[in-house]
């Protein structure tokens, strides 16, 4: 095998080699991601089902395990309907604009000490920039649909995401003050030495702020007013069908997994073991911690009623933001005076 392929590989131009290698790496991240998204939707329906004393989907395949594929094929063969008087180009572009940043953000996420696609210095900033781009897909979808419910959903979403992005950004400022770097790998390495070194302990308020604003940023229950199916049908994607809708769906779930993984990386030490003397570090820890937050998302959805819109705004601007600012101040003083937990 190698006798045949190695000369072929070397014969390729340097740029072609680079492009192919990067493409393969990107696929190695995105394909597992899609599979996780597919089974996350199943897990969501199962978890919520059992929490509501039902069984959830259990017909397709053993215990309903093939349900995601059935859903996927259904969405693929459905017609994409463009409403009359909708803005055609923007209507088609909107799902792409949501999807592309959601995927691009994964480029800088480290999975293990050396397992990262692009190990850039400003990784954290890059992720913030990419996640803040996703809102355009929502706004453009809402506007281009030429539907009042879609527009209402887009308006709600825009105001909500802008409000919570600030709290989220401030919470991350706390993380990089302790980590001393914008590089995600360096932030994880700064938490080395067992569970007592994890940033979740000195930064507990910021951890909660990040968790809450993460849920709000991804438009999930109890902050899902952008969709609000009991108020505005399905919000910004009410006019979308088939694959166009599936792309929104995929982006939303990929973002949920991303936020969960970032929580694990920045506050719970990522791939580091909580008890390094007993069990070694490894990618398994990262997946376990991520799964914990992913499960929390489902738990929130099944247990909390939806916030009223003005309450969401009050929580974002008048509770979460002041909490982060106060804690940054505390943290700054603690770092200056070298308080034990903060150094």
């Amino acid at each position: 095998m190698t006798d045949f392929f190695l000369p072929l590989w070397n014969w390729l131009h340097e740029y072609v080699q680079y492009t192919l290698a990067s493409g393969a790496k990107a696929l190695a991240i995105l394909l597992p991601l899609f599979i996780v998204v597919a089974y996350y939707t199943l897990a969501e329906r199962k978890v919520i089902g059992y929490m509501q004393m039902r069984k959830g989907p259990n017909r397709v395949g053993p215990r309903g395990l093939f349900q995601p594929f059935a859903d996927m094929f259904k969405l693929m063969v459905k017609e994409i309907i463009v409403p009359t008087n909708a803005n055609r180009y923007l209507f088609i572009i909107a799902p792409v604009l949501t999807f592309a940043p959601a995927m691009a953000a994964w480029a800088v996420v480290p999975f293990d000490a050396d397992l990262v696609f692009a190990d850039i210095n400003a990784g954290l900033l890059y992720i913030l920039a990419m996640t803040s781009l996703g809102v355009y897909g929502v706004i453009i979808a809402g506007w281009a649909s030429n539907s009042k419910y879609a527009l209402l959903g887009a308006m709600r979403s825009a105001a909500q995401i802008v409000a919570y992005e600030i709290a989220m950004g401030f919470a991350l400022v706390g993380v990089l003050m302790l980590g001393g770097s914008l590089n995600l790998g360096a932030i994880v390495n700064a938490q080395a030495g067992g569970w007592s070194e994890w940033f979740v302990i000195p930064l507990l308020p910021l951890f909660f702020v990040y968790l809450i604003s993460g849920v709000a940023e991804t438009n999930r229950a109890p902050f899902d007013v952008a969709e609000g199916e009991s108020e505005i049908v399905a919000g910004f994607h009410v006019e979308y069908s088939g694959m166009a809708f599936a792309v929104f769906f995929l982006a939303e779930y990929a973002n949920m997994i991303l936020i969960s993984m970032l929580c694990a990386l920045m506050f719970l030490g990522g791939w580091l073991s909580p008890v390094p003397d007993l069990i070694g570090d490894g990618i398994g820890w990262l997946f376990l911690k991520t799964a914990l937050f992913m499960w929390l998302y489902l738990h929130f959805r099944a247990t909390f009623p939806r916030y009223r819109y003005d309450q969401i705004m009050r929580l974002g601007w008048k509770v979460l933001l002041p909490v982060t600012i106060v804690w940054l101040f505390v943290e700054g003083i603690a770092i200056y005076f070298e308080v034990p937990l903060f150094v």
Partner: protein
Amino acid sequence: MVESIIFYVFAISTVTTATAVVTVRNPVHAALFLVLTFFTSAIIWMTLEAEFLAITLVLVYVGAVMVLFVFVVMMLDINIALLREGFVRYLPLGLLVALVMLGLMVSVVTSDIFVLDAASEPVPKPADYSNTEALGRVLYTEHVFAFEVAAVILLVAIIAAIALTMRKRPQTKYQDPASQIRVRKADRLRIVKMPAGED
């Protein structure tokens, strides 16, 4: 080679989208083209190895400022027909402004400051060079005064914006939970004795 291709592709798209901002008829499209202009210029900054500034441009301008712009433009009920009229009436003034701008730009570009020989070609920094750190160092030492002044101006702007929107609206019916709780039975209810009727 690759850098030049990236530069020219994104330089051309920056100019194209910037032109589209002022030429397209639909205000929402114009705002979205402005978003694209910011994004492409961020990539040009990236080719200059200014990663921090490039990502911050996307984060602040594309991710927050322009979202609010698009938000407002979508909410406004803009009469496009009204926007289009008066083209001939404003043409002389517009031409004058354009000429002044053109003259200024030509005088700046042709001056000695901006000729290619004035600045040597920047040397690429090593891979472990963090321009976030470099920028922070300069911002908090050399330029700390300007930085603080900018912060104060922004704070004043925020307070001014809030003060402008904090107007009393007497016709809106707010609930006041405190006064709702304070209510006594005597304030609301009058018990009237009525003799048993013989009608």
